[in-house]
């Protein structure tokens, strides 16, 4: 039962960066994708404070319910769930005690029964190069740890060869169950370890368990064609394993980057669906700016139109700033603490005819923005620089006066920052790449650059100094002195940020208009979701007199930016931007539900005050990207389950 078992032979298809398992190919691809992605979840085990991974009883029913949580196990039992939303779990426990393989399929069938036709990124499922046959008798024992729903963890020994029978059956009929979806299904479980020594694999390096985090060796299946057998029962040599782990990590980073690079450079017309599909699981830092702009529809997918479109948009922004605004943005009003007497003087010397019209309202808006920019991310150094604050004021003010129905609302100042710092970081990367990049890739690099950001005429003196700066390679947004960057660059970054922010906010305009009906709706949807996902928690909150609006208003108003670090938010937006429609509205509610349920056990032990204090300052300080990715996966599952089912479950 070794890792070198012959039937586990694999072919690594280099051109496609995919593995092909077995000789038969094709069949069972979904399951192997599933298994492959199960491992993504294991990385979270060490972080799930509320669950215990050492229990091991032999009860696969529990496993079923643990893995699939609130999914229904009865085949086509949608009807039953509709009549009894709380019965979902019960179904899992009672209906199919002896049909474990079927239960997997059945669960998926339910997912799909509740899932609309797949979004574009998923359409490749049938034509995808994934082609594996899962080895049936690997004797894998899975140690499964359920979501918060169940405290117990159970050991799942499946030694027969019907593992994927049900799944294959189902997958024939269901086109949606495709690699990505399955990976999200898989992520429903908190942890899955292959026994006896957990052998884990992951396509995504950032999902790997850090070497130091567990005593048990954890091995990643990389793109190495040498890799054999992922369900080995043999303990791996620790040292060997760690070396491989590091190599794999680098390989995977490289692979991921290459995939993005291929999508962004292979064709004159960038395939947005492909980009969405791959971005859902996270975008490499270097390519995030261009990917975001593409996903938002700001940067055209047709490369011949990119330069001209951006040029026009940036010009529009500059005219907007020049025309609408008669404010001296450089003056941050610091010394007088925003007394009203000084606001008017702050509106600039041109305070005569034109600006007096909407003067009063605009004055108030500017005043509010001015106050808030100073206290935006007070703990991040970048945002304390006057150059950066000036840019934020401009962007926010122009957006506010152009959207009078909402105007400026606190919280939007938070939403502007991910764009701004990603685009600023991208500028530094472009410079670095230009100076230090390898010659043979330089031409292709140009296709990865957002057009127009670098000065093609070499007239930008500050840019020239930066290019000649010996420290250029070490600059990041965390250590750059913003005064080294020219106003030409700032106006481009501002314009790009402005348009991208506008695109984002288009999805949630209701959140910021009078009485904020969008947020009220989202809060009530969140409550509704929790009633289906964790009724016990809902009842506890009710009994303690905690109202959802008391803690989740901010989650909606600031898109969890107050609860999670900017770095994590940026990772989250990779996924939000890959959802269709964009995930900032509806999908976000599912993310909030997943977020709340993470703390379910903690909350159930607390009273009214403790709950509120806890949720105001949730323990996310040490969260890593993989925690976010687990949460996003859970959110995806729940969205698949409930998106179109909510009406009759109410």
């Amino acid at each position, binding site marked *: 039962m070794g890792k070198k078992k012959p039937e586990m032979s694999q072919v690594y298809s280099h051109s496609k960066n995919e593995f092909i398992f077995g000789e038969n190919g094709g069949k069972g691809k979904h399951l192997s994708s599933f298994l492959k992605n199960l491992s993504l979840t294991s990385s979270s085990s060490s972080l799930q404070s509320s669950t215990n991974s050492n229990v091991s009883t032999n009860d696969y029913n529990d496993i079923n319910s643990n893995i699939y949580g609130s999914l229904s196990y009865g085949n086509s039992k949608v009807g039953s769930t509709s009549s009894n939303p709380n019965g979902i779990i019960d179904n899992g426990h009672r209906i199919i005690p002896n049909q474990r393989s079927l239960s997997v399929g059945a669960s998926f069938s339910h997912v799909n029964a509740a899932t609309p036709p797949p979004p574009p990124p998923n359409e490749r499922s049938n034509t995808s190069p994934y082609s594996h046959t899962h080895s049936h008798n690997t004797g894998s024992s899975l140690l499964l740890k359920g979501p918060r729903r169940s405290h117990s963890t159970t050991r799942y020994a499946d030694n027969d060869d019907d593992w994927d029978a049900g799944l294959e059956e189902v997958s024939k009929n269901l086109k949606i169950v495709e690699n990505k979806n399955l990976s999200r299904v898989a992520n429903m479980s908190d942890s899955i370890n292959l026994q006896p020594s957990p052998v884990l694999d992951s396509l995504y390096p950032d999902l790997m368990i850090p070497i130091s985090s567990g005593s048990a060796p954890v091995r990643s299946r990389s793109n190495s064609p040498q890799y054999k057998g992922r369900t080995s029962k043999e303990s791996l040599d620790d040292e060997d394993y760690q070396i491989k782990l590091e190599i794999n990590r680098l390989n995977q980073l490289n692979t991921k980057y290459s995939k993005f690079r291929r999508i962004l450079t292979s064709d004159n017309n960038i395939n947005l669906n492909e980009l969405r599909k791959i971005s859902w699981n996270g975008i490499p830092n270097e390519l995030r700016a261009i990917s975001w702009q593409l996903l938002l529809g700001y940067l055209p997918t047709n490369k011949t139109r990119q330069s001209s479109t951006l040029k026009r948009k940036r010009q529009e922004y500059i005219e907007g700033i020049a025309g609408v605004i008669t404010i001296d943005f450089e003056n941050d009003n610091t010394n007088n*603490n925003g*007394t009203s007497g000084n606001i008017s003087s702050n509106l600039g010397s041109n305070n005569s005819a034109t600006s007096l019209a909407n003067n009063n309202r605009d004055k108030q808006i500017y005043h509010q923005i001015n106050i808030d920019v100073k206290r*935006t991310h*007070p703990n991040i150094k970048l945002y304390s620089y006057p150059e950066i604050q000036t840019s934020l004021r401009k962007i926010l003010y122009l957006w506010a006066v152009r959207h009078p129905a909402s105007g400026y*609302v606190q919280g939007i100042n938070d939403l502007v920052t991910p764009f701004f710092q990603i685009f600023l970081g991208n500028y530094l990367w472009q410079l670095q790449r230009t100076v230090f990049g390898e010659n043979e890739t330089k031409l292709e690099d140009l296709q990865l650059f957002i057009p127009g950001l670098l000065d093609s005429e070499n007239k930008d003196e500050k840019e020239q100094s930066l290019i000649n700066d010996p420290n250029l390679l070490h600059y990041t947004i965390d250590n750059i002195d913003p005064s080294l960057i020219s106003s030409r660059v700032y106006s481009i970054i501002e314009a790009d940020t402005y348009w991208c922010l506008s695109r984002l906010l288009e999805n949630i305009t209701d959140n910021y208009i009078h009485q*904020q009906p969008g947020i009220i709706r989202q809060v009530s949807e969140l409550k509704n979701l929790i009633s289906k996902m964790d009724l016990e928690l809902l009842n506890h909150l009710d009994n303690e007199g905690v109202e959802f*609006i008391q803690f989740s208003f901010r989650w909606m108003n600031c898109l969890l930016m*107050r609860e999670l670090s900017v770095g994590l938010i940026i990772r989250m937006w990779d996924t939000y931007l890959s959802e269709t429609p964009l995930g900032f509205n509806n999908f976000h509610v599912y993310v909030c539900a997943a977020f709340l349920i993470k703390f379910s056990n903690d909350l159930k032990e607390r009273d009214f005050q403790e709950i509120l204090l806890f949720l105001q300052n949730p323990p996310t300080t040490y969260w890593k990207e993989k925690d976010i990715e687990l949460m996003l996966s859970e959110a995806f599952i729940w969205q698949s389950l409930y998106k179109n089912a909510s009406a009759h479950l109410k």
Partner: protein
Amino acid sequence: MSFPNPATSVKLVLLGEAAVGKSSLVLRFVSNDFQENKEPTIGAAFLTQKCTIGSKVIKYEIWDTAGQERFASLAPMYYRNAQAAIVVYDVTKPASFIRARHWVKELHEQASKDITIALVGNKYDLVEQDSPEDEENNMRKVSVEEGQNLADEEGILFFESSAKSGYNVNDIFIGIGSKIPESKVASSAPGGQGSSNTEGRIDLTSNAANNNRSGGGECAC
């Protein structure tokens, strides 16, 4: 830490224009701390602090609301069952004083009839350096008299304070605690803790653990 009387809970709400220092006042009261550029409050923040006034121990359950006008529709939810309210303005900003006037009016119309209200002119530290001769360049834009007059008209408490320096901050909460009628506190106790509406209940168990979660111990008063 033994007190003769169990703590009585008082639900208190802070209202006032954006950036006048509501959150900073609470932070000073609860944690004796000050942060220069505190992030704007969204929705509302919840904090607790115990306060001993003579023989009386009051546990404040504080709802610190967001100041921006857009969030104002949430305010009734927070002042509905409040026994006390602090309406804050910035002594260097006349507009914030106008807003404070509106809040006092709204509280008298909408909130519980015997709510105890304090009007607070914050950022006193900014006007300490003002000189009487040079009124043009003075930071102060709302005089003490204006504040006192409004308070007298409305029959409410009045303070000027500085969350930054700590000046008068505890006095506000002591003042409110002294003014809250005993009968009111007593009558605000619901039948028991089992009720779904725990707002305004008296915490008969006087759970010290709750107190420590808020980051501060007893207040100095």
